[in-house]
């Protein structure tokens, strides 16, 4: 019998070396993208055209300047404030746009939609422009809601400074009612939402806080103002919940209801996630895990883990949408990724609260990494019946040849006591930090995943995107995209969708519920399509979408059924509504 001879050691090592070096080559190849993955979708079914100039929108955001004692980190601290919110403040049926500015003396803008594809800035005459003043603070965003149910959309502006509540008097002018409302509070806030947590028909207000509220960024008494951890910081400002008690007054019920998180909350969103009839709260926290507060019959909020605490990241925004037409509202939370340094990855959390009391993160591939991602929104841009995702990106675009990431890496892993002090941070100078990043537009291919089609559809800007809002600006049955960019001009992308696809829209008017119908959830059923949307009281990052709900139907030529869950708790069912039009639905009164 012949025993096969083992090859010599040299030969054996040479044989091992082949797959060894092949593995290095494979890693190099995979660095440029997955092998065999679709590079792009051949026909996304829509095109985005930059129509900012044509629309007459000339707004340019200006960032603030702060106390020279924190000048070394000012580009970082002053990197927020560009926001966009959609409303129809003059009730003419055309959605208008509100943009905030963040430098003393620089005006906010209220662009009235003239209905012909163009806008005019009426902020000054309306009295909502001059909100960036020494001693009062600078605007970080605005959110619209009819808090007094008079049929006019009112405006809450949150600032690094005092809150400002502006009552819509007659659809043309606004009156500052902050003091009378009991909302004259200094909050270093980057977000606020309207919602009716106790279902009394009056919109309540949740305000998120970023820096502690005892900090005046123009007159700091200490440089220990930064977060105490990059992953589990809990030394941010305290979020506030204001209960609308009627008569134009609010009371602080934060502690009573148990929602005073001191994490560095950048965004909040509300929906009835567990389908018990009461609106819950979802928070995206910078330097920390997301938080979910379940509403216990309007009496208190109960913090639950729901699978959110296992991945602590840097939550920048939270957008709600039905990712895979399951009839549930899922959450997309953006995070930070930078090649070689950090992959926090975005979270696409499927809502399985009803089934398993948790959210399940299914983000992978392109949708998991959008760079330093900020605002995002779900919207059916091609009207095919599936939600796309638009994500704004980029943090600080300055010197293209200097990156702060290396400097950041010196302190990012260090002990929290060190970088809690702003004085410890290396000076920013004119460095960029994840600057010049492009927006992402993720085409929803269902089980096949999400494909970034931004370049193909025409979303090519590399501004420092912050807030994203979606609205059918032309009442054309198509969702347009508005992006507020930090220290840069606004971008308005007008959408051209596949004309073969159908759609239906709903303009809800509350009666027993708040008149804005904020928090109403609508489920459209059409054949195999079942999709849920919510009337937006603020979501994403520093943004608010068109309150009218838009559903793409694809080739489906009818809708079987529409179920409306009003914030009051009542349910309304519509059978076979007309399609390819906006339907105004008024809640049945008592």
């Amino acid at each position, binding site marked *: 019998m012949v025993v096969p001879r083992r090859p010599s050691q040299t030969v054996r090592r040479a044989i091992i070396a082949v797959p060894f070096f092949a593995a290095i080559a494979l890693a190099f190849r995979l660095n440029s993208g997955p092998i065999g993955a679709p590079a792009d979708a051949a026909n996304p079914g829509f095109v985005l055209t930059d129509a900012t100039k044509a629309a007459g929108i000339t707004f340019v955001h200006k960032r603030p300047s702060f106390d020279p004692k924190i000048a070394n980190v000012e580009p970082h601290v002053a990197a927020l404030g560009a926001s966009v919110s959609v409303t129809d403040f003059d009730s003419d049926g055309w959605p208008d746009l509100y943009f905030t500015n963040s430098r003393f003396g620089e005006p906010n803008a209220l662009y009235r939609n003239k209905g012909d594809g163009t806008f005019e800035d009426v902020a000054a005459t309306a009295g909502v422009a001059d909100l960036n003043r020494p001693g009062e603070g600078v605007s970080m965003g605005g959110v619209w809601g009819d808090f007094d149910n008079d049929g006019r959309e009112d405006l809450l502006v949150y600032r690094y400074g005092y809150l400002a509540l502006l009552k819509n008097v007659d659809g043309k002018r606004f009156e500052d009612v902050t003091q009378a409302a009991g909302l004259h509070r200094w909050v270093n806030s980057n977000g606020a939402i309207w919602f009716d947590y106790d279902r009394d028909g009056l919109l309540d207000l949740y305000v998120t806080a970023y820096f502690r509220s005892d900090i005046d960024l123009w007159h700091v008494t200490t440089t220990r103002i930064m977060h105490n951890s990059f992953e589990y910081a809990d030394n941010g400002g305290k979020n506030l919940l204001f209960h609308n008690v009627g008569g134009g007054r609010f009371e602080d019920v934060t502690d009573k209801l148990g929602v005073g998180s001191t994490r560095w909350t950048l965004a909040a969103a509300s929906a009835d996630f567990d389908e018990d009839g009461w609106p819950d709260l979802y928070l995206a926290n910078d330097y920390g895990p997301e938080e979910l507060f379940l509403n216990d019959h309007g009496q208190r909020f109960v913090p639950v883990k729901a699978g959110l605490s296992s991945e602590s990241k840097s939550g920048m925004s939270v957008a709600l949408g039905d990712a895979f037409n399951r009839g549930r509202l899922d959450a997309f939370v953006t995070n930070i990724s930078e090649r070689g340094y950090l*992959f926090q990855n975005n979270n696409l959390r499927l809502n399985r609260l009803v089934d398993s009391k948790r959210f399940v993160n299914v*983000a992978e591939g392109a949708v998991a990494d959008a760079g330093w991602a900020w605002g995002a929104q779900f919207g059916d841009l091609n009207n095919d019946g599936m939600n796309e995702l638009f994500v704004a990106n980029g943090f600080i675009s300055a010197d293209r040849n200097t990156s702060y*990431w290396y400097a950041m*890496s*010196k302190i990012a892993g260090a002990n929290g006591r060190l970088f809690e002090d702003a004085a410890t941070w290396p000076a920013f100078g004119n460095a960029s930090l994840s600057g010049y990043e492009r927006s992402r537009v993720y085409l929803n291919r269902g089980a096949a995943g999400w494909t970034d089609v931004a370049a193909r559809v025409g979303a090519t800007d590399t501004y420092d995107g912050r807030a994203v809002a979606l609205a059918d600006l032309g009442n054309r049955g198509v969702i347009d995209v508005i992006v507020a960019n930090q220290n840069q001009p606004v971008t308005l992308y007008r959408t051209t969708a596949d004309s073969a696809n159908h759609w239906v829209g709903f303009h809800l008017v509350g009666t027993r519920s708040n008149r804005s119908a904020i928090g109403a959830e609508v489920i459209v059923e059409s054949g195999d399509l079942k999709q849920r949307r919510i009337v937006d009281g603020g979501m994403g990052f520093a943004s608010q979408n068109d309150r009218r709900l838009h559903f793409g139907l694809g080739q489906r030529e009818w809708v079987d059924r529409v179920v409306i869950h009003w914030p009051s708790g009542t349910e309304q069912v519509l059978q076979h509504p007309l399609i390819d039009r906006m339907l105004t639905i008024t809640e049945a009164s008592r």
Partner: protein
Amino acid sequence: MTELAAAASTPLSWKDRARRIDPRYLIAFLITLVLVLAQLRYHIVGGYERLAVALLACTATEALLSWFDRGKVVNLQSAYISGISLTLLEKPQGAALWPIALGGWLAISSKYVLRYRENHLWNPTNFAIVTLLLVAPERISVLSHQWGNDLATNLVIWTFGLVIASRVRVLHITLTYVASFFALNTLRSLILGQPILPEIAPITGPMYQLFVFFMITDPRTVVRGRRPQMIVAVIIALVEAMIRFASDQGWPLPTAFNAAPALVALWLVGPVAKWIDLRRAGPRKLAPVPSPEAQVAPPVSARESSPAVSAVR
């Protein structure tokens, strides 16, 4: 009764028993403990599938290659430690698992391919992570702030690290590197006119502490002799300081250099030092190293000049 027989019949004290425990078991236990605590407190693993893939890739590679190269499957503890180390230190993009799998393969196979006089030259985990950072920076990052920036975490690693470093007699390497880091980076900040605190801040982070306790002290890839070991530690710190200086100046370096200067410095200096050491020793002076299994745990008598085990392998 001979002295040997008498010694054999005398009950061992607990200290003696502890000393006789194979250091590999101690290291495997402690690094597992670090991982478990970090996962419980900070969810550091980022998905248990990563841990499973890392352990599977490392142990399967070790088993396969040792069988192919030596004709038998060696003890897999070293591969297990490499798998844990990769899980702790390598942070891939998204839900991708291929960087973990390839990292495991590269770590272990480097021990069989990149050899000189029957010794491997690179710390396996260091080789895998830096190589991946160099060739696939779009998909890989290293441990940064995922450990919560908490003093308690530092204390845990220091405690475990001191136990291991003392047990395998490599504490002088750790301390030399730490002292050099402070001195050189203070000097660098003075030269550049930058505040000192940000420059010495990195060493307070867990990644650095894993590096100084468990990677730079890898006995199989350090040079022989206490003094040369300390000199190499200084050189590694020096090269790292030079990389940082270049980064401060904005020189166009590969991302790996900016993102993980300490790991790159070890990747550059370690094998060169080891190669010189082996070359100077000459083939006849080298103790026979017949198999990777034996490489993991040389005889106790050899530990004075070549400590027994690798922590982060």
